């Protein structure tokens, strides 16, 4: 079973080296590796259902000296999300980069980014997480520089890189404090030791603020729209669907596994308030934005905000069962957003290539040219808004009922306003696309097989997650998340 962990952590690195050494084989190699990774993650889910926590001590040292890889239900689910999205984006990228040289440059960096995501989700060591965060930030910025609109993309990548570096510095400072106070970096061992103390509190603040920058929670989101909207489409998909999400995953681990003794309701309310502002402000900006990709990027800001709404509610819920329910909803929401947003970005990528632009007011009638893609946009959009069959519907429903149970009715208001705004920006796009106007002449290449990944992802978000919600809950129930559940 620990072979699965090794495979998930190292296979992307092997793939990166393979793509670097034999560029011409990369187009063939990448889908195979992506497929293998999906297989591994599904097997891992299966294994997790039997044994809730799988540990692998790298180098055979274990304990507090070495580094361990660890998978539990939460990380296994996110790994599954990551590998599925990566597979779709990999298939898409083969068609998307028409220039050979650009594609040869793309693949090694792509697999490094993927390796960083997997390594982060599997790591059980605070400093190792810092290295994975740096690999994540650097490879993400490196991939952003491959964007078509050069100066724009480069500027966005630079800003992304610098803010990411500041975030990792804050994180590293927190790690130094934790090591000084507790003498170890291993998360399982720290989870049993951390007590409320001045150093722990400061460490929590530093770690959280560093990760919040990377997570793009308002008002630390300034880098996200530019970076996510100017990157190549498959990269945007992974950035929005996975990269911000894995930093959020790390925050969950910190708050609910490591620093449970330190975290206070006031802190949680502050986080929740920031999340609420992000929900409304992000949706508003998405509604106002003139470009499709920018709209999708701002939508990410707002959807990330929802995830933070869960934090004060989770902390306030009285008993184990209701917490487990709310936590399952949180994970479901994250998975739903990941898949739907990836589908949306891929679909927008197709529209952009077909029309040569992604201006919202000039896409009239594009549905007649790209019916499959626009269907994917509609499906993904309904999953993002949270229409009934989708996972987001269940998640929002749980959020609302939990907020009423804990007498924090104001979160309900935020969720409703955010949903209405989301519906508004979606209707705006779909209305324009399905409008009966004469379509502009096509400028890009035809991409028939390129449309499939987006469609499949979108269908998965709307139908698959909604129907598969029950297994996710039951998978999460036994371990939940460390100390709080």
């Amino acid at each position, binding site marked *: 079973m620990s072979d699965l962990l090794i495979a998930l952590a190292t296979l992307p690195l092997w793939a990166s*080296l393979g793509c670097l050494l034999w*560029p011409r084989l990369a187009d063939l190699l990448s889908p195979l590796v992506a497929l293998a990774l999906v297989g591994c993650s599904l097997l891992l889910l299966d294994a997790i259902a039997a044994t809730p926590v799988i540990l692998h*001590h790298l180098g055979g040292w274990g304990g507090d000296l070495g580094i361990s890889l660890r998978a539990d239900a939460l990380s296994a689910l996110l790994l599954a999300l990551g590998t599925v999205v990566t597979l779709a984006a990999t298939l898409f990228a083969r068609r998307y980069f028409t220039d050979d*040289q650009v594609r040869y440059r793309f693949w090694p*960096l792509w697999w490094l980014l993927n390796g960083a995501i997997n390594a982060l989700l599997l790591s059980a060591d605070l400093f190792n997480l810092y290295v994975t965060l740096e*690999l994540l930030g650097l490879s993400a910025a490196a991939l952003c*520089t491959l964007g078509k609109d050069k100066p724009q993309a480069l500027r966005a990548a630079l800003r992304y890189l610098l803010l990411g570096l500041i975030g990792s510095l804050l994180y590293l400072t927190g790690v130094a*404090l934790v090591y000084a106070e507790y*003498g170890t970096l291993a998360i399982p061992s720290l989870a049993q030791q951390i007590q409320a103390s001045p*150093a722990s509190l400061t460490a929590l603040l530093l770690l959280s603020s560093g990760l919040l920058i990377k997570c793009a929670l308002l008002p630390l989101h300034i880098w996200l729209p530019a970076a996510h909207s100017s990157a190549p489409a498959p990269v945007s998909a992974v950035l929005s669907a996975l990269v911000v999400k894995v930093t959020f995953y790390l925050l969950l681990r910190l708050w609910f596994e490591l620093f449970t003794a330190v975290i206070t309701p006031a802190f949680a309310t502050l986080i929740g308030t920031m999340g609420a502002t992000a929900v409304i402000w992000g949706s508003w900006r998405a509604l106002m934005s003139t470009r499709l990709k920018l709209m999708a990027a701002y939508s990410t800001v707002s959807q990330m905000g929802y995830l933070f709404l869960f934090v004060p509610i989770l902390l306030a819920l009285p008993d184990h069962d209701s917490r487990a329910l709310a936590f399952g909803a949180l994970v479901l929401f994250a998975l739903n957003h990941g898949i739907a947003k990836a589908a949306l970005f891929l679909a927008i990528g197709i529209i952009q290539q077909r029309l040569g632009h992604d201006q919202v007011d000039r896409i009239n009638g594009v549905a007649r040219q790209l019916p499959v893609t626009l269907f994917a946009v509609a499906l993904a959009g309904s999953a993002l808004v949270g229409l009934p069959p989708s996972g987001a519907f269940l998640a929002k429903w749980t959020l609302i009922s939990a907020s009423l149970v804990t007498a924090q009715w104001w979160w309900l208001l935020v969720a409703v306003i955010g949903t209405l705004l989301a519906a508004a920006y979606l209707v705006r796009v779909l209305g324009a696309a399905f409008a009966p106007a004469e379509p502009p002449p096509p400028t890009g290449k035809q991409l028939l097989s390129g449309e499939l990944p987006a469609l499949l992802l979108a269908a998965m978000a709307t139908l698959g997650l909604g129907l598969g919600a029950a297994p996710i809950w039951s998978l999460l129930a036994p371990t939940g998340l460390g100390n709080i559940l």
Partner: protein
Amino acid sequence: MSWMLIDLTLCISLLILAVAALYARGLQQRVVFFIAFGLLCAIAWARLNAPDLALAEAAIGAGLTGALLLSALNDETDPQPPLTQPRLGRLLTTAITALLTLALCAAVVTLFPLHEGIAIQQLQQQMPHAGVVHPVTAVLLNFRAWDTLLELAVLLCAALTVLNLAPARPVTAHDSPLTGMLTRILLPLLTVTAGYLLWTGAHAPGGAFQAGAVLAAATVVLRLNNNPGFTHLRVGALRALLALGLLLFLGVGLLQTVLGGAFLQYPPSTAGFLILLIEAGAMLSIACMLSLVYLGGHLHPHWPCHAPSNGVDTWKRHS
């Protein structure tokens, strides 16, 4: 008492140099102050019994980063955009940073005295099985080898992007007899030093990163003297050189896994040899990557591949 005097002097000079490097008027002055800051820091670390870090900071932190910044000065010659941050925002960020710093200082004061951690106790028990005698190398390449492996991936990512993006740094060649002589003295010395650092890492301060940095310095010296260096390397060879370190590391890591052990576990009898092997590969890759980071990319018009490009993004079109 006298040591405390030295400590205080060092720390105050460090703070002064940091302020100078951050707030001096011209960028050029700031870079020079930054280099001085790094070198002083190396002294402070030597004082704190961290010779490995002193070496690394002098070679990589102050040396290579300093050289990188100095050569980047030319990029920044055009007028800078005016301050776009609103006043309130600036005030707010300053206030938050000040608060955070205050909290950090307070927390640091409460930390001491430290008690011996669990990790260090386990380290002392396991040292005999590490395969090398020098504890820092043991931690880097055995106990926490996964960190080091990922760190090589970080370097690879930076080097690839540099190759993808930037034009080669315009090198002002110095063909004067003076620099020629210096090169003739320095090159063999640097190469020997790199080899020595690599070898000695097993039982004394040194190791792949310091050795790689020294080797990178040799490449830079070569390039400054108008020597072609990397341009004569074939593209395939360059790719292989970049991949070598990570490839060896991953391969050796899998050795024991096949036999049912853990990933990155070394057989106890050959641990020392395997670590040296990994370090040798890593040194070459590190030297290649670091010198690429300094020299800039596109030394090869055909990076990453010799295929005839349909040229949307090739650098050549711009120039």
